[in-house]
């Protein structure tokens, strides 16, 4: 599953921090189905292209939308948060369940060190303040996939607070105009995942699989600094890349390792925030953006029609492209939070406060974890731009595709060609072929070494660039031939013999005297001569060299 490349080549869009939504009205209170000419082509809410939203007329009130994201990321670990059962995606039902996960009486939670490290790493990567003391609580609610009747979470004092997530958004068409936005991270907490329910409506029953129950989750609560679907999507994508770079979570939305809920509300600028609705069941970044934009539109329409927004939970129906109320979550929930009596406070240390002679297995040193943090995507992109002189757009694309950066770096290692050439070939030609056949980088028939060899041939002017494209197409067929072999087989080498080339130019000029005459009057007619020479050489000569020779001959 390839996430959409959000920034490259995006059309003229300008996202202000406050999302301004204008409505076409002659007067306030005009019915929705008015026959105003502006309304034509804008009636379908779900497909309304965002950048054609009309600016409000003078005196018309604007709307501001506010989106608060709650993200649950499944921690990548061998065993669960509080028990020693395995964490694995597909396994026979209830086979990865310990007595504690099934909440049999007499079992106790034992905290997994790896999960705490993952939480601290994520907190540090998002510039959070790590709480040296954090507490565990119970959050009570009844559902069949929560056998204990409560979830162990960190409600009062989570492990990390007050961070920020920076993401870039497109402003204007120029690639250099990449503005950075930040969304504040309110807190990061450790909590348990619940089991899976399979609803069997036919037999009026629910089948419960507890394999997922007890897996460690990182809940990231973001402040409502996001104001539209695209911003939310970009922020979540960046978070995905960060989690994957850290190794704390695989963060695949389709696999349920990254779950996002959006709290959406609208209000008039200057007035207090409106009632919010919670949108769930978002299982891809694209649907996240769609659902948020639909919900914003729905709320605006509802309020402009004099209706009210209910504080409810809605589900996104991706087939219809709209949000619908969820039946199961009626009424307010009282979670009756209480401290988890079986777990003492979680204490973390730094190098200064580390107790002497402490068992290294039993203490966690925040400074040590900070030193071991891998390079984050933002830093990687900056490095690529500095080191290879590529544009921000290119660096985004390189990081956006799984394994593409590694491929690029492998090619760079083995070739003499200029970075700009390599970038262009990898992002345009190579990626183009992959996308056309819907392949991942891993499945590519062309290896990094092969491409490096091809680029070397091109760089040494042994072949022309059109010949190189032909060679690439041959390589893609994966018949086991090297670029050099293909070149010699198809006789694609550039003519190196200068004298022979001069002879050819001379004979072409002799054969087409009228064209030679044309050139004297119209300099651009030289292109026709070049074309003729190229044909004579069976495309094995470099056009620039031909041009130089011809120009020399014509002027003499």
């Amino acid at each position, binding site marked *: 599953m390839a996430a959409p490349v959000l920034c490259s080549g995006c059309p003229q869009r300008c996202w202000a921090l406050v999302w301004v939504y204008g409505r076409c009205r002659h007067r306030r209170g005009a019915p929705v189905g008015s026959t105003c000419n502006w309304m034509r082509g804008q009636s379908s809410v779900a497909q309304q292209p965002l950048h054609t939203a009309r600016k409000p007329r003078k005196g018309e009130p604007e709307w501001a939308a*506010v989106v*608060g994201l709650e993200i649950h990321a499944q921690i990548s*670990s*061998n*065993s669960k948060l509080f*028990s*020693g059962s*395995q964490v694995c995606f597909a396994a*026979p*039902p*209830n*086979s*990865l*369940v*310990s*007595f*504690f996960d099934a909440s*049999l009486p007499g079992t106790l939670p*034992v*905290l*997994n*060190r*790896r999960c*705490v490290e993952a939480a601290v790493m994520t907190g540090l990567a998002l510039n959070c303040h790590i709480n040296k003391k954090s507490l565990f609580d119970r959050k*009570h609610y*009844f*559902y*069949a996939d929560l056998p204990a009747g409560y979830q162990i979470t960190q409600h009062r004092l989570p492990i990390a607070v007050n961070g920020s997530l920076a993401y870039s958004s497109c402003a204007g068409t120029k690639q250099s105009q990449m503005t950075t936005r930040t969304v504040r991270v309110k807190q990061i907490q450790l909590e348990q995942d619940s089991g899976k*329910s399979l*609803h069997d409506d036919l037999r*009026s*029953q*629910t*089948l*419960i*699989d507890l394999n997922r129950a007890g897996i460690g989750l990182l809940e990231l609560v973001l402040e*409502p600094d996001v104001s539209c679907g695209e911003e939310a999507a970009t922020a979540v994508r960046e978070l995905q890349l960060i989690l994957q770079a850290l190794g704390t979570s695989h963060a695949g939305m389709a696999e349920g390792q990254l779950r996002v809920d959006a709290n959406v*509300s609208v209000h008039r600028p200057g007035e207090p*925030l409106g*009632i*919010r609705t919670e949108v769930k069941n978002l299982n891809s970044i694209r649907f996240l953006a769609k659902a948020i934009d639909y919900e914003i539109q729905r709320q605006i329409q509802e309020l402009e029609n004099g209706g009210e927004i209910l*504080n409810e939970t809605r589900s996104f129906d991706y087939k219809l492209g709209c949000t619908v109320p969820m039946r*199961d979550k*009626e009424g*307010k*929930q*009282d*979670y*009756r*939070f*209480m*401290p988890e009596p079986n*777990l*003492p*406070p*979680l*204490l973390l240390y730094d190098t200064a406060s580390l107790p002497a002679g402490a068992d290294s*297995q*039993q203490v*966690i040193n925040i400074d040590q974890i900070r030193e071991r943090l891998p390079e984050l995507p933002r830093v990687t992109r900056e490095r690529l731009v500095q080191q290879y002189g590529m544009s921000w757009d290119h660096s985004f694309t390189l990081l956006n595709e799984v394994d593409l950066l590694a491929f690029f770096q492998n090619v760079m290692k083995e070739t003499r060609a200029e970075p700009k050439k390599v970038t262009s070939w990898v992002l345009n030609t190579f990626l183009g072929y992959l996308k056309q056949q819907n392949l991942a980088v891993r499945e590519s028939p062309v290896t990094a070494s092969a491409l490096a060899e091809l680029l070397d041939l091109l760089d040494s002017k042994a072949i022309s660039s059109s010949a190189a494209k032909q060679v690439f197409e041959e390589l893609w067929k994966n018949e086991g031939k090297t670029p050099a072999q293909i070149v010699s087989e198809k006789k694609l080498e550039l003519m190196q013999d200068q004298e022979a080339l001069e002879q050819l130019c001379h004979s072409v000029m002799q054969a087409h005297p009228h064209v030679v005459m044309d050139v004297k009057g119209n300099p651009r007619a030289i292109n026709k001569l070049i074309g003729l020479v190229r044909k004579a050489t069976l495309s094995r000569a470099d056009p620039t060299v031909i041009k130089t020779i011809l120009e020399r001959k014509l002027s003499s």
Partner: protein
Amino acid sequence: MWARAVWLSLRAPFGGRRGFISTEDPQGSGRITAEMIEHLERLALVDFGSREAVARLEKAIAFSNRLHAVHTDGVEPMESVLEDRCLYLRSDDVVEGNCAEELLQNSHRIVEEYFVAPPGNIPLPKLDEQEPVLHS
């Protein structure tokens, strides 16, 4: 901060309430309202079927409210008797699981290694409609 924070603070905040009675009835006569009973019944799925049960609840609350006689200004609340203990950190190894057969023996009904539960959350009827039902 914003609507969600307001909503969050309306939930029963941990440790914030100083006994149900003082918020419901300033006189402190210890009466529990019908709404409170309904709320508790939905949350805890118990059945306060009789007036005696409610009276017993009121007595229990009055008994525990005697804690207010203790002067606790400037004293840090104790959240856990384990607060001086060290939280043991387990290394990330797989040591449990693979006992599906044993676990499924506990269940009244199973379907192909899945536990069987009633469909979704069955909404409770309102208090004024009929007597509240105890869920098994």
